[in-house]
């Protein structure tokens, strides 16, 4: 497929308009920041910020309502409710150390307690929280019906509707729920098996962040995980301070073992994410998947491992893995990718003639393949 050329309309007036509106919004943010510095813990600081930012943007409809004090903890500030419009997310900050994105059509109420702790009560939808480590800071909690997330500091998403769910982008959390305790790591998600409606989960579930290191670059949730069946962990010896005690009675209807395919898919996605931060562990994960029972994911993992080796400047290791792929999975759906990876590995090894031969073979098998053009160039 050729490059589809789409050029943005170039207009100096448009750029100036965008620039003017942008710096108006930034000015509003600076006003709010200065207010934060002068008045510690203001009651309606964020309400003001939203009002200014919302007006300046003229695009976000942020509804802020001051409601009655219904927090379980004694409070020093009235709760504020943020209702994100149905067609877009709404971002807000709490203090200097928490950025919350209320997903489209989300209603969330936040409140500050006497001990300085922040409590978000999720009424519907989902919130994506990026919270600084709580070392020395006041606690940060998210309550979503029966699910309570107690934050030490990480990036995670709590969803209430259509079903309870916790996604962790950074760090590692412990999920305590009826039936056991699970560790959920970065890139994984937790949701009760079989729960299709919010009311199916009635017992308390506690999620505690046990380790975290916020990334300096904002993350993109490009591949939400359908269902994470995280590694089963042994029960904690002592409940976390402030967390809700889980119901010790297991409920096999809600927590059922995942299928082999689900496990393999989950492990593959986790390995994918590890490629950036810990390639060695990613490679180990791919190897483990390749030894698994699910042939489809095993073949895919081998090709992914070969490509990882190529990026690590180890073409010989990549070739070895590709040979293993060809031997074990001669009819794999990843054959085309593997064929091209072999060409790249041969080129990286300086075996130009062999690479040319492999390219010719690729063209014979995949004349309209994804890599047909570069392969044809190689053959020439």
């Amino acid at each position, binding site marked *: 497929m050729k490059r589809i050329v*789409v050029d943005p*309309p170039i207009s100096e007036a448009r750029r100036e308009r965008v620039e003017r509106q942008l710096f108006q919004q930034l000015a509003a943010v600076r006003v709010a920041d200065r207010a934060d510095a002068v008045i510690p813990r203001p009651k309606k600081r964020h309400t003001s910020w939203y009002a200014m930012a919302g007006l300046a943007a003229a695009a976000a409809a942020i509804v802020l309502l001051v409601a009655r004090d219904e927090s379980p903890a004694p409070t020093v500030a009235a709760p504020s409710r943020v209702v994100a419009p149905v067609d877009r997310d709404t971002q807000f900050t709490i203090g200097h150390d928490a950025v919350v994105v209320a997903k489209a059509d989300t209603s969330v109420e936040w409140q500050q307690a006497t001990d300085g702790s922040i409590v978000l009560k999720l009424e519907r939808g989902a919130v994506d929280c990026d919270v600084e480590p709580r070392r020395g800071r006041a606690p940060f909690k998210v309550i979503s019906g029966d699910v309570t997330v107690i934050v030490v500091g990480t990036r995670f998403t709590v969803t209430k509707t259509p079903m309870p769910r916790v996604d962790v982008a950074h760090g590692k959390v412990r999920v305590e729920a009826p039936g056991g305790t699970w560790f959920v790591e970065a890139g994984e998600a937790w949701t009760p098996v079989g729960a299709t409606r919010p009311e199916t989960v009635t017992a308390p579930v506690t999620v505690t962040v046990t380790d975290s290191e916020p990334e300096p670059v904002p993350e993109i949730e490009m591949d939400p995980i359908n269902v994470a069946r995280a590694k089963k962990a042994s029960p904690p010896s002592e409940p976390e301070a402030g967390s809700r005690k889980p119901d010790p009675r297991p409920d096999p209807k809600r927590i059922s073992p995942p299928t082999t395919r689900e496990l393999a898919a989950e492990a593959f996605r986790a390995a994918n994410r590890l490629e950036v931060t810990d390639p060695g562990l990613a490679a180990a994960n791919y190897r483990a998947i390749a030894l698994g029972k699910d042939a489809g994911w095993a073949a895919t993992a081998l090709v992914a491992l070969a490509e990882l080796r190529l990026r690590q400047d180890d073409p010989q290791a990549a070739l070895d893995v590709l040979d293993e792929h060809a031997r074990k999975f001669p009819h794999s759906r990843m054959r085309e990718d593997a064929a091209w990876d072999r060409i790249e590995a041969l080129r990286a090894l300086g075996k130009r003639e062999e690479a040319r031969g492999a390219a010719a073979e690729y063209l014979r098998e995949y004349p309209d393949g994804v890599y047909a053009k570069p392969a044809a160039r190689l053959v020439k």
Partner: protein
Amino acid sequence: MGLSIVERPTPEGDAELVAACVAGDMAAQRALFRREYPRVNATVYRLVGSTRDADDLVQETFIAVFRGLSRFRGDSKLATWIDRIAVRVVFHHIRARGRAPIPLDVIGDIEGAGSSTDAQAHARDGLRRLYGALAELTPEARTAFALFAIDGRSIAEVAQLTQTSFVAAKCRIWRARREINKRAKDDPVLAELVRGDE
């Protein structure tokens, strides 16, 4: 209207500019905006296909950039870091919007479409159909495909910008292409746009 080529900033320039922006230097912030705007605007526009949405999303991107700049450690190029934020902002927008059709209020001139009014109108019709087809894809596939086939990024860049692996990015592009081609079978205008060189 040709493609605008934006030079990537040098690391030294990045460090100085970032430091000045973090220190609250308004002139530096405006300089950073003006330097990065053309590329960010082009990428965002190509992802959403609408100037109206693009303007809002470009603003959102730069607000996120300036608010997060103090956390930029220089591990990657500043331009890449900004592009990742832009892609994230657009991705959330696309996901929130769902599969509703995207209004194409303005589409620029199309390279290779000829200068006649008819040719331009024909090409614009093709783009409308293309973005209509893109709206049917998953946000992940749509973003990956648009970055690759429209914004001209390599698969490695797509993987980096969408923070996924090379294999995953490639799979998404491939799936999107398959869907677009499927749709193009019954749509000669779209077919002409996406298969012009085949």
